[in-house]
């Protein structure tokens, strides 16, 4: 559903353009022609104009970690609602994780999803296939046939790989198939609890999973990445030690990494609420880890942010912590949560946030994340002054399990444009589009 209609021209006038990838930082006009950025300068005029005075214009955000629950759990999210939620959060590109029902481990499933994405997604959605059949960490998937069917990468996300030997072969084969591997690093012999194994868990009487569950698996993955030469992306890094390990291997392996908005802004203090809503995997960590991850993102040790957008039905979240499904909505609140806590808190420069949400993940997927002339016109217009309340009743996602529900965040996505066409637009409330 990415609009492919008559190539049209659009000029966005007067926005503060901020794009670290091309060094743009100032008020200027952007001309879009035939779905691409064709000119950036002053006093540009066009047949269609958006007056973006007072707004910021960034390259569209790219989220390499999303669960759109399709096929199988369309009651929680569909390609339509997931992509609408992404667009509402300023995302123009997304990678869909394969832990659906059926699991995306066969070429025919990839082929079907790719066709549906073309029809149903508002944003550029890429399909991650499974690394192992059934995500079981045993038999390799037919990665080359999966790639031919349209898979963009492989991942057993949601699960760690139990055997290092199996993971090593998976990396080797993925390298031959020319597919990047996204790894959820978790040792399930250590991760036997439901929250971080810290003070909050002890006081609450909840079974904890220690940080070592992530750290040992991350170390294993990094060592194997260095040895195999595979292109490996470590997703949702949530501990200070794992971030440091990634830093150690950055020059020694073809490795990138991300962390999530919630691991950057929330801590395991929320465990004391005992509310199932706040269960997530990897679990929210103590503030020391949160700070370590934040520093690693600031310094570029962690390359970018991904949301791990994980919709869940209400009946799976309104449960005791031990019974609740782990996962948070991510798309719609990612930018505002990070802007509010980190940028306004003077802990992260705005330019670095844009780099981490747009440029770096755009480079990783090989498309978007830049406002350079000739690039696809994937961009997002943001009002950095607007404060808004996260309301579970008005989420664009089909689910409502946002950990920020009820909070007031600053920074509102006003318009999201994919290939030159608006896929999310609330500018009408403030100003008109002149035809």
């Amino acid at each position: 559903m990415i609009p492919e209609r008559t190539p049209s021209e659009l000029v966005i006038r007067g926005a503060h353009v901020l794009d670290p990838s091309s060094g743009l930082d100032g008020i200027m006009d952007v001309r879009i022609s035939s779905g691409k950025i064709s000119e950036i300068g002053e006093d540009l005029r066009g047949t269609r104009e958006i007056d973006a005075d007072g707004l910021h214009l960034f390259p569209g955000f790219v989220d390499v970690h999303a669960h759109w629950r399709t096929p199988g759990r369309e009651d929680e999210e569909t390609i339509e609602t997931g992509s609408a939620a992404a667009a509402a959060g300023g995302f123009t590109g997304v990678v869909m994780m394969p832990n659906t029902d059926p699991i995306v481990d066969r070429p025919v499933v990839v082929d079907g999803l790719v066709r549906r994405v073309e029809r149903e997604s508002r944003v550029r959605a890429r399909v991650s296939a499974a690394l192992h059949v059934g995500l079981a960490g045993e038999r390799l998937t037919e990665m080359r046939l999966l790639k031919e069917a349209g898979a963009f990468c492989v991942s057993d996300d949601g699960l760690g790989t139990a055997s290092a030997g199996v993971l090593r072969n998976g990396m080797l084969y993925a390298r031959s198939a020319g597919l990047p591997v996204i790894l959820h690093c978790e040792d399930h012999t250590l991760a036997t609890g439901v929250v971080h194994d810290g003070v909050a868990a002890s006081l609450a009487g909840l079974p904890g999973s220690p940080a070592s569950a992530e750290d040992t698996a991350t170390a294993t993955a990094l060592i194997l990445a260095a040895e195999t030469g595979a292109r490996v992306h470590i997703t949702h890094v949530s501990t200070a030690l794992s971030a440091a390990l990634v830093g150690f291997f950055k020059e020694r392996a073809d490795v990138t990494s991300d962390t999530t908005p919630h691991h950057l802004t929330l801590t395991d203090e929320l465990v004391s609420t005992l509310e199932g809503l706040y269960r997530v995997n990897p679990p929210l960590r103590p503030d020391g880890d949160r700070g370590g991850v934040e520093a690693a993102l600031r310094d570029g040790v962690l390359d970018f942010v991904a949301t791990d957008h994980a919709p869940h039905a209400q009946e799976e979240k309104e449960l005791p912590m031990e019974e609740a499904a782990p996962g948070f909505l991510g798309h719609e609140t990612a930018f505002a949560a990070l802007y509010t806590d980190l940028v306004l808190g003077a802990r992260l420069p705005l330019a670095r946030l844009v780099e981490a949400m747009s440029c770096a993940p755009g480079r990783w997927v090989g498309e978007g994340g830049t406002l350079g002339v000739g690039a696809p016109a994937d961009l997002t217009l943001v009002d950095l002054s607007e404060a808004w309340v996260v309301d579970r009743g008005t989420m664009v996602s089909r689910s409502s399990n946002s950990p920020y529900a009820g909070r007031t965040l600053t920074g509102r996505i006003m318009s999201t444009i994919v290939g030159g066409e608006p896929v999310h637009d609330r500018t009408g409330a403030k100003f008109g589009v002149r035809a």
Partner: protein
Amino acid sequence: MEARSFLSLEKTSREELREVLDLAAAFANGSLTDALAHKTICLAFFEASTRTAVSFELAARRSGAHVISLSERGSAISKGESLIDTVVTLDSLGADAIVLRHPAAGAALLASRHTSAPVINAGDGCGQHPTQALLDLYALADALGGFEELAGRRVAIVGDVLHSRVARSVIPAFVSSGLEVALVAPRTLLPPESEAWELPMLSSVDEAVGWGADVLYMLRLQKERMTGARIPSVAEYARYYGVARRHLHDGLLVMHPGPVNRGIEISGDVVLDPSSLIPDQVAAGVCVRSAVLALSTGAIQRAAA
């Protein structure tokens, strides 16, 4: 007369290869009958083998040698006698050459240190299988019109290089002969330091044909051992690493050391296609092994050294 073990083709010169092949040609045209008269050749096979064992036995008998054959069944090997003790026993019995097949790499080298008789490596684990590579060269040179015709031709070696003793002999022998060699395999079936061979790495038979391969040398896939762990499925393997009719073009030759998994490395309709050298490879085994036996036992003196 100098006896000389025949263990590996790793550092064999073009001249040495050529000498063996020339001698094999002489055996093939019948001008060297009885070259091994009064020699005793012992075949010690610690691992099952059909074509190699039969081929060595024929090679020895046709040239007039006595043959003693020990297999893993029905001999002291099955009683757990060690490799070294078996070799020492055969030496004491007066063997002029010991032909050894063993499941562990390095077995032939170890055996050669414990006997004065020459040891001929008939395949040691994932190590070496030198007579296979020689018969491959013989069959290929024959098909192309002579040893000189090998230089500059392109051979793609396709499949499980990691577990292949054939590959470890074929690669150096082909390179020494002037052939240009490329490897075609997923990284799960390549040794970790396969870059050490300094050969081009290709990712499918299609790519090999595009590279200009004159010969597709297909290795056997041990599918029981591989599926799931190192390759995802036979279907995907056959799609990218199998030769099919669509790959065949005029002048392209297909080789395989056998036994073939029909429909996996080679589609069923290609195995016996005129482009297939597989029957020629098997046929070349006898004269090539006669030549190796003759040189090893010193029955015929080597010129090059």
